[in-house]
């Protein structure tokens, strides 16, 4: 069982900023961090990034250096109360993939992709304390110099999620309503971590889909006939893992051309054809192919 020493340092300009009170907004800036595991750099923002760590032993500590810009009201409004800025988590603990898809008030952010590690989300647990403060609409707090530095044993969850079209296998990401979407994970993750049996919902652009098959490494659903979003994201919900909701990827939905009966319209000077598109059925007016008239032969 490998041991870990995670050392995660953001760049010098990275900051988390929190505005409490009525606005309760949160922002972060330039959080491009470096991450090493056992002194080996882990690439971030490129394919191959482990989508999460599952710590088996040890305590994960997240260290923050707070910088007050304005005061907060008690009990969280004094610098000393959160000056340490330390979050600790006992193993087992998931440092999960996280895509900022958890919804308001978190901004929706898909980049960088593949997924960042969800320590952000855990940080916001602390932010939540600030959120409970009162009468501090104008207060703000900035953390900088956040780092994770801890030791223990770990599993690297490095499964890759793949979207397939079971109805039309040749169209890996081009779907039509009624097609079966298959999401696989390879290799299957350890049970009770990221495996698909833990998934509680599949969402297609926010709409909950009916799961038709769910195993440890495979999950399926059918695109409803009325789904007309051209490029919806697929997200998986797992309250116990990947920070609640994780982005699997985007697909393209193409609606088929409508069938029907041609009708003769007096005075119409072109042919109106229905065409399939990603935004539903559309029509296009085409010219009638060179309408002509001929006389009989002259001469004998």
């Amino acid at each position, binding site marked *: 069982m490998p041991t870990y020493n995670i050392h995660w340092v953001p760049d010098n300009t990275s900051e988390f900023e929190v505005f409490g009170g009525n606005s309760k907004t949160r922002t972060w800036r330039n959080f491009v961090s470096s991450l090493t595991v056992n002194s080996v750099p882990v690439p971030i923002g490129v394919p191959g990034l482990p989508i999460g760590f599952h710590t088996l032993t040890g305590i994960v500590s997240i260290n923050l250096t707070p910088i007050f810009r304005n005061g907060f009201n008690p009990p969280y409004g004094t610098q000393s109360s959160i000056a340490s800025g330390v979050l600790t988590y006992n193993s087992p603990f998931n440092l999960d993939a996280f895509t900022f898809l958890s919804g308001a008030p978190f901004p929706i952010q898909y980049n960088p992709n593949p997924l960042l590690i969800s320590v952000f989300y855990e940080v916001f647990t602390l932010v939540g304390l600030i959120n409970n403060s009162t009468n501090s609409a104008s207060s703000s707090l900035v953390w900088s110099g956040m780092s994770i530095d801890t030791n223990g044993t770990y599993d690297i969850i490095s499964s890759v999620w793949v979207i397939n079209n079971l109805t039309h296998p040749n169209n890996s990401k081009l779907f039509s309503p009624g097609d079966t979407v298959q999401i696989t994970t390879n290799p299957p993750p350890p049970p009770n971590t990221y495996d698909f049996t833990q998934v509680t919902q599949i969402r297609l652009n926010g709409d909950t889909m009916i799961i038709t098959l769910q195993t440890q490494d495979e999950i399926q659903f059918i695109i409803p006939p009325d789904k007309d979003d051209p490029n919806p994201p697929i997200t998986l919900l797992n309250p116990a893992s990947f920070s609640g909701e994780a982005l699997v990827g985007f697909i393209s939905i193409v609606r088929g051309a409508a069938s029907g009966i041609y009708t003769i319209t007096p005075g119409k*000077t*072109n042919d109106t054809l229905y065409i399939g598109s990603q935004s539903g059925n559309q029509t296009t*007016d*085409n*010219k*009638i192919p*060179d*309408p*002509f*008239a*001929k*006389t*009989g*032969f*002259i*001469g*004998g």
Partner: protein
Amino acid sequence: MAKKGFVGEVLHFGSVRFRVTGSGNLRSTLHSLDDITSDILPNIVMANATNTEPLILANFTEQRAYLEFKTTAINETFSIDKIVIFIKPVATGYPQ
């Protein structure tokens, strides 16, 4: 006495005149038997109403020919209600 028709003479198609209304450009062409040869006539810019029947010159010599009208762009229409084709025999027939 009925006028005698043509029987195998070689005819010169010198011009055509017709009344046409519509929109767009009317394209007209004289074609020989089996469309082996043809003579493309000048286009006519059509109007929904007109008081003229222009004479369109042609220069086509064949034993038998027919006149074709057509439009090639979307939403062009034409309506023809009179066609006059001027011909003159120039030879009694083709020798073997």
